[in-house]
């Protein structure tokens, strides 16, 4: 692949803290290599700002290999930018060309208050997991791992749901700021496994209750969450969540409702 360099205009959301009003600031960056990652381009910008005696832009990031779920930029109107199945940290600058303008915002949702600039508070997700996103098994209680055979297809499906990285792109992308894709991924992961079965009804009820309490919006089947999810979590999870939820309210319940 040919390497090239580019100059860019960035319009970035700056906000001092949770309580103060934010605004867009415009920055110029020069000589950006097409081989850089998007966050490395931000590193360059921040180094430039520090050298100029200005304040750098705060943004969340950690693993920079697309798995920790910490990075969270809304780039030109899309969560994690234009690449399919890609987190912000894995987006590379060969997507852009000289002279482009890029607009970068934080995740916007009532349940994700801005901490500073592009950094938001996602502890609501932790609290949803606390409401039931687990199997109640203490250390030492386990039987031999192969005593629980699980059909390969089921195991693979469960894994596909468990691949969620909890980044919150689904919420950011949704016009209603709904957390249904996140919640459904966890409910599905555990509902498809025999280990998750005993708590199936209480789990779905409690997690949905917590989701509502946190102020996330409702799902209206738009599908932006699936389109923007960096891990390809499918909308089928939401259908499954709904079945689980209905199942939890009826006698006999969800046992056969996958």
């Amino acid at each position, binding site marked *: 692949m040919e390497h090239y360099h580019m100059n860019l205009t960035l319009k970035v959301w700056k906000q001092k803290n949770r309580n103060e009003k934010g605004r867009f600031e415009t920055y110029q960056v020069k000589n950006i290599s097409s081989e850089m990652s998007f966050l490395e381009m931000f590193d360059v910008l921040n180094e430039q700002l520090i050298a100029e*005696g200005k304040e750098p832009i705060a943004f969340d990031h950690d*693993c920079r*290999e697309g798995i*920790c779920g910490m990075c969270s930029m809304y780039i030109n109107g899309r969560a994690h930018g234009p690449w399919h199945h890609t987190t912000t940290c894995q987006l*590379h600058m060969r997507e852009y060309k000289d002279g482009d303008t890029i607009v970068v915002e934080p995740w916007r949702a009532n349940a994700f208050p801005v901490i500073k600039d592009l950094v938001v508070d996602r*502890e609501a997700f932790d609290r949803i997991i606390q409401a039931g996103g687990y*199997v109640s098994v203490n*250390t030492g*209680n386990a039987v031999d791992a192969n005593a629980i055979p699980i059909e390969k297809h089921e195991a693979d499906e469960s*894994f596909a749901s468990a691949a969620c990285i909890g980044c919150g792109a689904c919420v950011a992308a949704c016009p209603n700021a709904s957390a249904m894709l996140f919640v459904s991924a966890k409910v599905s992961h555990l509902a498809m496994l025999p280990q998750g079965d005993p708590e199936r009804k209480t789990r779905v009820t409690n997690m949905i209750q917590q989701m509502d309490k946190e102020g996330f919006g409702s799902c209206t089947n738009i599908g932006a969450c699936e389109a923007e999810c960096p891990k390809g979590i499918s909308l089928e999870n939401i259908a499954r969540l709904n079945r689980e939820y209905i199942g939890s309210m009826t006698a006999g319940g969800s046992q056969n409702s996958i």
Partner: protein
Amino acid sequence: MPLNSKIPAGELAEKWEKYKSTCKLVNPANKRQLEVIVIGTGLAGASAAASLGELGYKVKTFCFQDSPRRAHSIAAQGGINAAKNYQNDGDSTYRLFYDTVKGGDYRAREANVYRLASVSANIIDQCVAQGVPFAREYGGLLSNRSFGGTQVQRTFYAAGQTGQQLLIGAYQALERQVALGNVKQYSRHEMLDIVMVEGKARGVIVRNLVTGELERHFGHAVLLCSGGYGNVFYLSTNAMGSNVTAAWKAHKKGAFFGNPCFTQIHPTCIPVSGDHQSKLTLMSESLRNDGRIWVPKKQGDTRKANEIPEEERDYYLERRYPAFGNLVPRDVASRAAKERCDAGYGVGASKQAVYLDYASAIERYGKIEANKQGLANADKATIIALGKDVVKEKYGNLFEMYEKITGENPYEVPMRIYPAVHYTMGGIWVDYELQTTVPGLYALGEANFSDHGANRLGASALMQGLADGYFVIPYTLGNNLADDIRTKAIPTDHPAFVAAENEVRERINRLMSIKGTESVESFHKRLGKIMWDKCGMARNAQGLKEAIEEIKALRKEFWSNVRIPGEINEHNPELDKANRVADFLELGELMCIDALNRNESCGGHFREEYQTEDGEALRQDEGYMYVAAWEYKGESQYELHKEDLIYDVVHPTQRSYK
């Protein structure tokens, strides 16, 4: 002070069983009165906090990320070892123990490693019970794969996301304890000091990274589960935030640092592409199962990989190590890659890379698949297409990641790889109970030095983190806290807390008042370059001596010229980074001192002066069969304590993978 490793008496295989049966216990009512602080929420921290919460202790966890689920254990790709012998291929607890001791080049403690191997099977059971979706066969049972340094298939995995799935399992167990009120969790908090009361660790000073406020927290015991320090090299496969700060503060409060120079350089990482590079990305070692590593036979060959005919390729690992081939341990594979590149056979624009080629695996799998589908005379294109599907199922997410980063399609052209800093075997010295030389202070997982000797085998980091957290600390902590049941919670207005907090505040004020001209990042980069050039894959006495002086000078410059924008009492990532880099600037010196002291080559520590004729690591068992445990005595002053390693069962030999 003589080091007491507290290894229980008795036969190797019985030590842990005997310990568990005879250690002191704390009754449930007393557990509710005992408070435990856990620093870090990766596999070791989350599993420890969850298990201790289940037992009834009052636990507090701290992590610098925005959620415990982000800890860098999440990035582990390939798998987790366990001596289940599900494949009936000759595995056993003993064999896992033996492979680990040998893989570590005979610089690990036998008793610890045996315990690790013996609890490994329980880990898999526990994780499956939590709903960790490991890969399975069509019969519904768990699947295994091979990993470097072993000849059995004992690695359990969840595609290339094993660390993620295990961490989510531990995280969920932790969140359950949070919901039950047994654990209180503090995210975006960083530990900046240990509080000592009457010679014991009794609490921590942490900084709230959102508000910048300092907080005091009491604990009857403090568990450091804060990971490794590979980021001292600036470029590594670690997360950007991974740091040594918690461990280093503990070190300065009296915890000895064990084998700091033992660093693992992982052979299969995506090569550096330019000066802008902020981190290096690992391509799982599992890729060496099916991929073949080669360079051109001709020096400086500028042809494209696919244009180089088979007979002009040097599969140098298969050539040098016919018994293990591409599956030699990491240290051996890394050095072999460096040797080829240094000799002028490297590939790619930088010439600092070798090929990892999947063409023959794709063809092999394609043929098998064609047979399965009953296609008798499948043409080459069909075979390749079928083979690509198989490879995609096994390694798809890794191939995708490679393509995103490099813009090249690894199904069509071989990947380019080069070694990168990945893991640190060294860490806080601990005894058999995982207690440091500071009473009441424990270190678990990568933060301690204990189980991997001078080189860690692939898929063993996850195993150790979870062994320490789920199965070791619940026993050993109780054994010690049983003597502490009469100790009431110490109020945090105790003078020791006030003094520790003042010390932390004073240091932050000092950092902020420098107002120099150079960014934290640029100091970190410069430190990394010194470390990589002189304390990296190959080291020698002269280079190490130079590095020590260079680091001292750099540290001085940092403290007089670093520029930290923003304010103290706000979310200020530059200040967080400055706190960490200041500690790396001290640690780097100790690593060089340790590397200089160790006049031998072993595992990942390769001193150029000590090698065999064909370039293999040459140990000096006579003089160096010990753990180097360093005591902090003031700036640039460290006293060496030796823990002799005694091998009752395994007889150290020169490691051979030929």
